[in-house]
């Protein structure tokens, strides 16, 4: 990076931190610190939701995903708009009326304290692990850029985020999310424009799309139903719906965003805007990856995109063999580039016969280059069996650093940092909220003063940040980062979603049945992960269905034991005990607003 890049990057980061501190000032109680006094307008809620979801991983890994695997990943988001509608109808009014601090607080109203605590702890484990990956991604960026040790960079970045989130609270988190989302979108538009500008003179945007499409990188839709296909329309719509329902309806890092809405309308509008904007945004980011792929059909990409691994093998006894392979790879790339130009020229002339011939030649040249690249990767492995052979996360960064003009490199890195800060800060504030409200204030110290809880919240925020930095040190071998985050979530989301579905819709099922069903569901999901080849997107469905089924059977059994009809109000002592709460969703209008201040 050159001086102007450093100025752009430093200036952007400084402005974010200062803006966050300015907006977050004056939080004197828990409601201000953890819920931004519930005064946010819909656009701030919407952009905060989007910014929290869009981590740095989104911008380092997603374009790489399109480069390697095409655009089919966009289908993963098809369930999201439907989830936004469902949550707007169900969850938003309930959470608002109760005035809860966390989604799990509602579960105590509906079931009992053990179900609330179990769900909250699942969230703390799952999100606690994910937040480490969220910090790891930008650390990776700096390591590549500066040649620094990843442990140093993750500690440095994590430290900056901890200071900024701990001092500012959720008010700062939400407002900086808005600012960061604007920076992110500006960066992405710039990157997209540059993928077109940097194409060879005789290759236009549509030509590049034909090149990428001809190589299978514009496969945005696949209607074939295949349980073993990771991303298709059906897994995206069904699995994606479950993931989105679970993430936005039960994950505190998202629920907290729309709990800050000034009203039901503001929160709903925020969610619905996200539902409308997320799919096109993700398509756009994947399209950037496909365009980078097209660009590299005419330019020489490195044989391997991770420069650290390449340098390691160059310095080793395998260096000579690797150099020879690189030379052959470059020759193959030149042949591929020439074939790609011929293919583009044939398309321009609309010469169908020649198009088929040149496309075939292009595919053969491309295949040869890929074979040589595979040889190069084998040498990397032979040199170091522990070498990270997945370079997906480095593809987009390589393009940015090597081909973007001075100034724009800084902007793109600022964009990645902004994304990291927005998601990490949201996650830390959610983790702090759960730790304090669901665990500390509920189980450890119920009678503390407001200032005490505020202090504990700040400490919790800092502690989770330190933990995340520590975890980030070990995240380097998790493959494509965005997948790692989503796989991790899928291990728990199905169970959490089922608990909330029971809470919202199956009012005759009590806390005990739900609690043990959750355990059963989690065991089944973990068995699927360790012992089957079922794609991870289906874990959400499996976990959710198992919990629902077990809870229904268990509730029937419990009702039978107590000698009552299942659907009778006398079926189970527990139901009688919690009757007023079980019926709660049907009686929203009668819930007193004083619930907000009830002792938890």
């Amino acid at each position, binding site marked *: 990076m050159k001086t102007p890049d450093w100025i752009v990057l430093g200036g952007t980061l400084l402005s974010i931190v200062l803006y966050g501190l300015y907006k977050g000032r004056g939080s004197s109680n828990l409601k201000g610190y953890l819920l931004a006094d519930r005064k946010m307008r819909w656009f701030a809620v919407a952009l905060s939701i989007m910014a929290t979801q869009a981590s740095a991983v989104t911008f380092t890994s997603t374009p790489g995903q399109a480069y390697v695997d095409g655009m089919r990943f966009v289908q993963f988001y098809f369930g999201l708009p439907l989830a936004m509608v469902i949550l707007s109808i169900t969850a938003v009014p309930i959470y608002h*009326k109760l005035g809860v601090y966390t989604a799990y607080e509602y579960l105590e109203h509906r079931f009992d304290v053990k179900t609330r605590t179990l769900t909250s702890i699942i969230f703390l484990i799952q999100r606690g692990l994910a937040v480490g990956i969220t910090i790891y991604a930008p650390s990776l960026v700096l390591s590549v850029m500066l040649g620094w040790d990843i442990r140093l960079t993750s500690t440095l970045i994590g430290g900056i985020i901890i200071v900024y989130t701990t001092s500012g609270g959720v008010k700062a988190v939400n407002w900086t999310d808005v600012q960061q989302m604007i920076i992110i979108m500006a960066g992405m538009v710039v990157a997209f424009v540059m993928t077109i500008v940097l194409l060879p003179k005789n290759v236009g945007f549509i030509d590049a799309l034909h090149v990428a499409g001809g190589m299978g990188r*514009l496969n945005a839709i696949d209607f074939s139903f295949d349980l073993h296909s990771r991303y298709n329309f059906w897994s995206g719509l069904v699995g994606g719906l479950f993931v989105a329902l679970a993430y936005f309806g039960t994950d505190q890092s998202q629920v907290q965003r729309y709990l800050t809405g000034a*009203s039901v*309308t503001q929160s709903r509008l925020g969610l619905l805007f996200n539902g409308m904007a997320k799919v096109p945004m993700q398509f756009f980011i994947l399209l950037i990856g496909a365009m980078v792929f097209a660009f590299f059909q005419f330019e020489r990409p490195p044989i391997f995109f991770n420069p650290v691994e390449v340098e390691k093998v160059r310095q080793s006894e395998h260096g000579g063999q690797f150099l020879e392979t690189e030379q052959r790879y470059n020759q193959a790339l030149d042949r591929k580039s020439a074939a790609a130009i011929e293919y583009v020229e044939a398309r321009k002339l609309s010469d169908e016969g020649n198009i088929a011939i040149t496309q075939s030649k292009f595919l053969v040249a491309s295949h040869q280059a890929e074979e040589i690249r595979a040889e190069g990767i084998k040498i990397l492995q032979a040199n170091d069996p522990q070498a990270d052979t997945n370079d997906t996360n480095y593809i987009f960064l390589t393009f940015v650093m090597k081909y973007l003009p001075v100034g724009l490199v800084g902007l793109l890195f600022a964009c990645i940092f902004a994304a990291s800060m927005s998601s990490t800060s949201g996650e830390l504030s959610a983790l702090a909220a759960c730790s304090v409200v669901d665990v500390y204030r509920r189980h450890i110290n119920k009678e503390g003063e407001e200032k005490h809880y505020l202090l504990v919240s700040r400490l919790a925020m800092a502690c989770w940040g330190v933990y995340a930095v520590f975890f980030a040190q070990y995240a380097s071998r998790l493959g494509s980062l965005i997948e790692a985050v989503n796989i991790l979530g899928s291990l728990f989301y199905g169970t959490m979603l089922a608990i909330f579905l029971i809470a919202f819709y199956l009012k005759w099922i009590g806390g005990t049945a739900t609690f043990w069903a959750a355990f059963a569901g989690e065991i089944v999901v973990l068995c699927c992960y360790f012992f089957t080849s079922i794609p991870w997107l289906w874990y959400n469905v499996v976990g959710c269905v198992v919990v629902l089924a077990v809870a229904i059977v268990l509730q029937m059994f419990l009702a039978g034991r107590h000698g009552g009809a299942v659907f009778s109000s006398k079926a189970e002592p527990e139901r009688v005990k919690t009757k007023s709460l079980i019926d709660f969703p049907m009686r929203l209008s009668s819930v007193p607003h004083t619930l907000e201040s009830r002792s938890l």
Partner: protein
Amino acid sequence: MEASESPPPVLGSWQRLYMFVIAELAILILLFYLFTKAFE
């Protein structure tokens, strides 16, 4: 706090707004399909 049934600022009712979001998704899927077919 306002009632949950307060109408949205656009389209008159929440039901219409929800339908609008779902319709946009359907249109996007159709466009993505045409995009995939056009360049495959």
